[in-house]
């Protein structure tokens, strides 16, 4: 298994290297480039040449790429034009806020989705399963930006129970922490509802799969109650697919977080990315995309490794 993990690691590093090339090339395919985006349409050709020379943007693309890569490996993510601050510093304050949002949503999603999935698996193809299936289809197809807006209309505008904006400022500041629970309620519900729909689907089919296994039948026939069988034999085995899903669903969660942050104006990394995209802030765009990609790769790598550890039947040669 160690060999398998090492191979997966090497593979991930190669893919990560590929990601840096793709992202870098795509960004530099754009006509005009950073100089035009930053200096505006009134800049003269001379201004642009001077700007490019100063930042080393007149060098050949491969040279620029390796300079950029070298900087990143040394922890220098570049300097944001739009926010006038080092990108590493921006991400350092914004990423934890995104992680709080995503972590809370994951937690809520798991707490709701596991019992829901078990219920559906046990009662599969009965009326309650059909009803829940219809709902999970509905939420799964529901884009976070719309779900968030509907929740704002209901809970902020109509009922006036919860604020429509997320906490502002940074973690640790009084203005942020005091608003944390109330302000994050709607964003977390938005992101969690969509995740629940997906997780409970998987949990349902995993439960259905393990219900027909021999050891479950044995457990039932030796006299365990259905609750005991569910807890000891079905639940434990059905958690394996969910474990994998946790890692694999990371990119979707990042995308969901981006949209959720833009709805509720939550100053996390998604909002940072969006603002950078609107103002062609290349260094910030490159760095955030890279971080999200690293997280995605790490998520699927971890999922594979956990899968290999948890399920001893799987042997990799």
């Amino acid at each position, binding site marked *: 298994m160690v060999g398998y993990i090492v191979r997966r690691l090497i593979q991930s590093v190669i893919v990560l290297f590929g*990601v840096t090339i793709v992202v870098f090339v795509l960004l530099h395919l754009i006509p005009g480039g950073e100089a035009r985006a930053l200096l505006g349409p009134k800049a003269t050709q001379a201004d642009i040449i001077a700007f490019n020379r100063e930042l080393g943007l007149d060098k050949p693309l491969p040279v620029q790429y390796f300079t950029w890569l070298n900087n990143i490996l040394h922890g220098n993510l570049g300097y944001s034009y739009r926010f006038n601050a080092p990108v590493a510093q921006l991400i350092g304050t914004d990423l934890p806020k995104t992680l709080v949002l995503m972590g809370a949503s994951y937690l809520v999603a798991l707490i709701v989705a596991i019992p829901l999935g078990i219920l559906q698996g046990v009662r599969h193809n009965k009326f309650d399963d059909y009803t829940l299936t219809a709902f999970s289809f509905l939420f799964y197809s529901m884009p976070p930006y719309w779900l968030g*807006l509907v929740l704002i209309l209901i809970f902020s*505008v*109509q009922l006036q129970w919860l604020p429509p904006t997320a906490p502002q400022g940074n973690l640790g500041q009084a203005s942020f922490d005091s608003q944390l629970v109330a302000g994050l309620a709607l964003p977390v519900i938005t992101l969690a509802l969509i995740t629940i729909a997906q997780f409970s689907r998987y949990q349902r089919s995993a439960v259905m799969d393990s219900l027909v296994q021999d050891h479950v039948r044995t457990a039932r026939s030796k006299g365990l109650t259905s609750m005991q069988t569910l807890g000891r034999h079905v639940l434990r085995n059905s958690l394996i697919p969910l474990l994998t899903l946790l890692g694999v669903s990371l990119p979707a969660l990042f995308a969901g977080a981006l949209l959720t942050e833009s*709805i509720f104006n939550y100053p996390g990394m998604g909002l940072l990315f969006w603002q950078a995209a609107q103002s062609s802030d290349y260094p910030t765009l490159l760095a955030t995309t890279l971080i999200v990609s690293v997280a*995605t790769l790490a998520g699927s790598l971890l999922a594979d490794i956990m899968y290999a550890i948890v399920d001893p039947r799987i042997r990799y040669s």
Partner: protein
Amino acid sequence: MSSTPLPQTQLETAAIHTKSKGSFRLVAEAFLADRLGIVGMVFLMFMVLFCFVGPLVYHTNQINANITNLHLPPGSPGHILGTDQDGYDLLGRLMVGGQTALIIGFLAAFLATMFGAIWGAFAGYYGGIVDSVMMRVVDTMLAIPSLFLTLFLAAVVTITSQDLIFIVALVAWLIPSRLIRGEALSLKSREYVQAVRMMGGSSFRAIFLHIIPNTIGTIMVNASFQIADAILLVAALGYLGLGVPPPATNWGDMLASGTNFILAGYWWLIYFPGAAIVLTVVAFNFVGDALRSALEQRIK
């Protein structure tokens, strides 16, 4: 390949023809027995009629803004669903926006599935180093979450509807290519593919006439999910302000402008376009799901 004796070719095509017809009927019967699939199919037909035939019946001005009629609530005289922030009739706006959403979604999914299928079929058929390189390209692109990649591209070019199709297709071809590669891996060792090779048929012939046609089930199922995803992605880009230039619109752009008035309580600007997106996406997912289980039953 022209050296293949004629009668044999006819026999071969005849055999394939009757087989595919028989299995087609089986799949169609299984599909028709699936209630959710039928609901989805009927709804999609309604949606296409609504968006493309609707404007011929229900005439509204969707070119010129009308600032004397802003934000009329649903039920106002002459405007069943009310008007939006530019005074456009909302029902008519939903039709126009739906045209863009459906066309972009369909074309992007079509382009992506075609390209993905060819890419995957080549990788799976050739195997070895070709397969590794081609699939690492897919892995690399998949490692960048699609919303980030598309937003990244959409932000730096000025968008037209054609650009949107290509931008969405650029991320949508990856999943089909993986699926088709998996199928091509097993199909290439089948007798009929081996036979084509033995008779001197080229790799191209084997891939385009034998492998890809035999993955048509997977392609169809995946295409219906891809359309749903493409509609969602285009709407997301529209919501984030990267939509089609006015007076054109799509459901996501409509939501984006409605958001500005959410605290004023103009719920109709949010509920109707959003419901259009969700119901269409659910319908495509129902159809895809029904197709998938219909095809699985055929295999059993």
